[in-house]
């Protein structure tokens, strides 16, 4: 990797630290909560950016993968998990250390799976589901693919909404924190706020660096070729079906990770996280971010979610994202933050400033 690509990442890291220091110093560190949540949402956006912008495959069901990770976390760290097993099996699992038995504040029995097990399960389930959905669905193109993924998202939404173990319309609350290191938890406790902020952002920046390297590699070139023309990419010897499926699975796992940690951080999840409007929101953010532009998607993912979480859009929250999508598709279907438009602005400023510099 060249220095030029290290520098922006280092800068981003510095800004992240600066924000925390400033907010803690000025007593506005409650803002860190929304910045932490924004980072988890931005993780979903980054994964979708890879899928939509680079591989050229739209998904209108990404909120479902977010919810899949979130609900796995919620079920496995609350007493809901007792519904999964009979009493005998439960006891056996406790003995084997696969389920931890403790008592809650009221002295009642509280069950949860250890963090590594629930995280592993969340990832495995997401991989399995996205694989099973991806194989038939990715044979479709364009708006057919959009419709199919929309259908998938709706099905999962109804399942979360209507199943007892997922808490039906109430969702699952009182999800216990997830222990990352001894004494350090992903959870809502105010004493852990700064840790949670850094944890979310390290995860996000790590994902960004991973994807930046991926799109610059041979894989990235192959993806852009598929985006350009699937047939021609096939004629170059690129296994288009396999690439599309792998990228779909990777981006689903990103979404699930965001959902997993968000649920622990918030201490709960509800069915609206799997809703269609959430999926539309992710697609809108990727469109605003410039489609094949990881930096733009990250920036927009954080900024727009932060504004939304702070309540700046009021009751028009979903409408704002719907309107954004319409405006982008009508005026700049290729996205706003694009290399071409940036170089156009540079060219324009160069021309305008020419007589002065000369």
């Amino acid at each position: 990797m060249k220095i030029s690509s290290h520098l922006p990442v280092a800068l981003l890291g510095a800004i992240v630290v600066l924000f925390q220091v400033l907010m803690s110093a000025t007593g506005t560190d409650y803002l860190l909560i929304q910045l932490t949540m924004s980072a988890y949402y931005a993780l979903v956006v980054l994964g979708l950016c890879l899928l939509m912008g680079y591989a050229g495959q739209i998904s209108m069901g990404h909120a479902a993968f977010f919810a899949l990770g979130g609900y796995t976390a919620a079920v496995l760290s609350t007493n809901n998990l007792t519904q999964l097993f009979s009493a005998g099996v439960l006891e056996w699992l406790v003995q084997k250390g696969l389920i931890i038995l403790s008592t809650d504040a009221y002295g009642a029995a509280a069950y949860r799976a250890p963090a590594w097990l629930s995280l592993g399960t969340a990832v495995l389930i997401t991989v399995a589901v996205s694989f099973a959905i991806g194989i038939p669905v990715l044979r479709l193109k364009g708006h057919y693919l959009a419709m199919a993924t929309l259908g998938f998202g709706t099905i999962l939404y109804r399942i979360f909404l209507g199943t007892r173990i997922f808490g039906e319309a109430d969702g699952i609350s009182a999800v216990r924190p997830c222990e990352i290191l001894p004494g350090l938890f992903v959870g809502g406790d105010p004493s852990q706020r700064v840790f949670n902020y850094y944890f979310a952002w390290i995860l996000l920046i790590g994902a960004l660096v991973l994807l930046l390297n991926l799109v610059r590699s041979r894989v990235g070139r192959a993806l852009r070729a598929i985006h350009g023309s699937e047939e021609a990419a096939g004629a170059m010897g690129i296994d288009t079906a396999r690439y599309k499926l792998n990228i779909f699975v990777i981006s689903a796992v990103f979404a699930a990770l965001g959902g997993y940690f968000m649920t622990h951080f918030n201490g709960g999840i509800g069915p609206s996280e799997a809703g269609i409007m959430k999926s539309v929101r992710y697609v809108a953010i990727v469109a605003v971010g410039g489609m094949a532009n990881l930096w733009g998607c990250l920036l927009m993912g954080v900024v727009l979610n932060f504004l939304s979480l702070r309540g700046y859009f009021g009751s028009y929250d979903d409408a704002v994202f719907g309107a954004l999508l319409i405006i982008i598709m009508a005026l700049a279907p290729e996205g706003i933050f694009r290399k071409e438009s940036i170089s156009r602005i540079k060219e324009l400023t160069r021309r305008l400033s020419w007589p002065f510099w000369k």
Partner: protein
Amino acid sequence: MLRIRNLESGYGSLKVLRGVTIHINSGEIVTIIGANGSGKTTLLETITGIVRPRAGEILYKKRNISGMPPERIVALGCSLVPEGRQVFATMTVHENLVIGAYTRSSGPDRENVPEDLESVYALFPILKERNRQLAGTLSGGEQQMLAIGRSLMARPGLIMLDEPSMGLAPIIVKHIFEIIIQLRSRGNTILLVEQNAKAALGIADRGYVMETGSIVLEGTARELLDNHDVQRAYLGKDYKSIGE
């Protein structure tokens, strides 16, 4: 080099190729001429594995490649220059060429890629001049050169060109066809599919005439050029001038 026997293929319930039998010897330019919808493109796509064959066999260097996925067929050395060029518009000229070497770029052959890049640039100096430009901003002729250069990057034994003259000015077509002759003298074998029968037969060694999914005529390029039916149907000569 390539031997196809009784090949049948199609899309869904539509049968397009109805028992095609052709062969191409090493170092030849062989052309397939025929009208729109006669199955020429389908034949190339079936050889490349993009369309699955239903019956018959395709032997490339005595190896049956029928039913293999495209990525393996390309890796074996059959390279397609698709109809309408299909360059990757949002990638630079340089990136388009590197993508052409995709099947080689994970193996030990990787080290030879820069060398091949230079040889493509030597063949098409205009591409070197524009190597940082996005492929979508090239002219039609330059895009065709890029598509040919891209296929050369796979170090193919057999290059299949699908209508390289499509949509190009006559002077550019002439230039492209001169390059195809150059490719043969470099040792490549070429299968050229064309609607521009006159130009194609002008440079080919042998040719086949295809009609509604079958080969109806074959012969040396000279024989086909002199054939009255070919003259009437594909070279635009009418009965009277033939009769004279």
